[in-house]
């Protein structure tokens, strides 16, 4: 079985701790659409490195504190 990398994120939690920032506000900060933020948060879309860094910057944290990954399947 081929390995599959699943990108996970903590955006929802980080939004909550950033004065309950809305998805729209985050989208505005990083220059993306709300639909994209919804998809990233739900794990339906893995953002580009550029957008991932922008999201981390919006929360003033390192990228590794926002995104992580899980490996599924055999290595």
């Amino acid at each position, binding site marked *: 079985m081929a390995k599959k990398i699943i990108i996970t994120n903590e955006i929802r939690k980080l939004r909550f701790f950033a004065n309950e920032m809305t998805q*729209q506000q985050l*989208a*505005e900060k990083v*220059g*993306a*659409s*709300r*639909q*994209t933020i*919804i*998809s990233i948060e*739900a*794990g*339906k*879309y*893995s*953002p*580009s490195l*550029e*957008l991932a860094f922008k999201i981390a910057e919006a929360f003033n944290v390192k990228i590794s504190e926002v995104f992580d990954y899980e490996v599924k399947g055999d290595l």
Partner: protein
Amino acid sequence: MSYQEKRSIVSIVTGLIILLAYFVYTYTKYQAGVVSEGDLKFWAGAMLLFIAIGVIATIIIQILFHILLSISIAIQAKAKDEKCDDKEIEKEIELEMVSDEMDKLIELKSNVVGFGVAGVGFVFGLIALVMDYSVAVMLNIVFASFSIGSILEGITQLYFYRKGINHG
């Protein structure tokens, strides 16, 4: 439902209406005996006419869609906060219609589907000619495949917006 999903649905419905209108128009003429399979001038003319109608209809429907969407956003914004001014409403409309990297990726992947269907249709059209079908049949296969490709492009976009998309 997001702006992008609504836009995809509008595009699908427009494509379906145009394709259906083309087939109703040509089928009724063909059944009435007004045109024959060999009347290539008619078939080419009908296709050109419906391509033109398709382009104009798409532009008009997209404009109407954006106007209606802007009105609904303005109404929602006013309902939320009566004091919000025009600038805030304008900003909300702009934010709703913003296009980013995910939209571009979805567009690219759905384009592959659209062009793929059109390409397969062209090959089937050539096969039809090899199998001694008339040129009108070949033209209709090609026209239908381009139209269906465009509709499937919209459906693919809708699918990716709903189910998500990954690079690669």
